[in-house]
């Protein structure tokens, strides 16, 4: 899993290297905060070469491993591209998408008459060098992935990149 290693701290690429950055991005002994406001905007990196007519497409959004994002409450948009939040690797050629928590449903029922209901629970899973990291896990990956892809597909028409990497 990316961002799972404690690892050494890295010099920020996109933010000034100062105390404010390290206080914001690093965990610094803080506990996870599982309160998610509906207006909060999770940030997610996206490969710039995969924009179609300047917009992100659901084809490039991955759901089966859970949706990994940075929480707006604890980070700036560009922090999701910093090596501290990318397992120590820089991410050139990426842009940052601002999603909406309110776009993600709490639960989704399947339409195959099986009566299955998938719960969508965001979980704040900070690591030592990236406190804002949030992972939204799910069960039954294959079906869940397909449903989420359908449901979140409107992202492509409503969302535009919020931040451009170097």
């Amino acid at each position: 899993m990316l961002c799972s290693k404690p690892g050494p701290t890295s010099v920020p690429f996109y933010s000034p290297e100062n105390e404010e950055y390290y206080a914001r991005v690093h965990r610094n002994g803080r506990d996870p905060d599982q309160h998610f406001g509906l207006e909060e905007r999770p940030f997610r990196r996206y490969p710039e070469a995969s924009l179609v007519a300047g917009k992100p497409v659901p084809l490039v959004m991955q759901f089966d491993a859970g949706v990994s994002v940075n929480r707006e409450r604890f980070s700036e948009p560009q922090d999701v591209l910093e090596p501290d939040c990318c397992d120590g690797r820089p991410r050139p050629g990426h842009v940052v998408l601002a999603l909406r928590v309110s776009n993600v449903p709490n639960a989704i029922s399947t339409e195959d008459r099986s009566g299955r209901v998938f719960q969508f629970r965001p979980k704040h899973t900070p690591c030592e060098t990236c406190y804002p990291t949030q992972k939204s896990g799910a069960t039954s990956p294959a079906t869940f992935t397909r449903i989420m892809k359908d449901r979140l597909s409107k992202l492509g028409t409503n969302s535009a990149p919020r931040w451009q990497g170097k």
Partner: protein
Amino acid sequence: MPLYLPSAVVDYVAADQRRHPAIFGEMPSSAQAGPQPIERLYLTALLDTSRHSEFNRRTQKFAALGDELARLRHCAFGWDGYEAHAPNEGSIAAAGNALRVLDRLNAEPAAVLPSADGGVGLCFTENDRYGHIEFLNNGEAWALMYGPTGEPQSWQLTTDGDDALQQAWAHIRAFLQS
């Protein structure tokens, strides 16, 4: 006694417009220019025509899409900045076959992209409407389409061969043009 001439006789402006430019030295006359290579004249005319050729434009577009598809072989694990798998040879071959079928159907994908689920997708856009056909590494193929209103629609391409692809494109085309 004044002599009036018909207006057509004294219309020097119109007459001047019909003069060959070489008369005023604006361009060399045929005598001054010397013999013109006939093949160059044909080539110039051919290039002028080909610039407006829809066939040539589509040929170049599909060549570019084929190049995009070939470049996907260089994708590595985590190409999306997270944990996406790279497309395998099977999905690349399926997408390549789909490109040939779509070319015959006069369909034109907007982009060929790797899929975050592991595979290759062909994307179509028309104004605010979007559709894609996705060929996964496990051999499955899915289609998805959505617009600014209404529910997104997705379905699995279940039948083998080019028929499923033709049906999927017919659905997507109808949706994009509706």
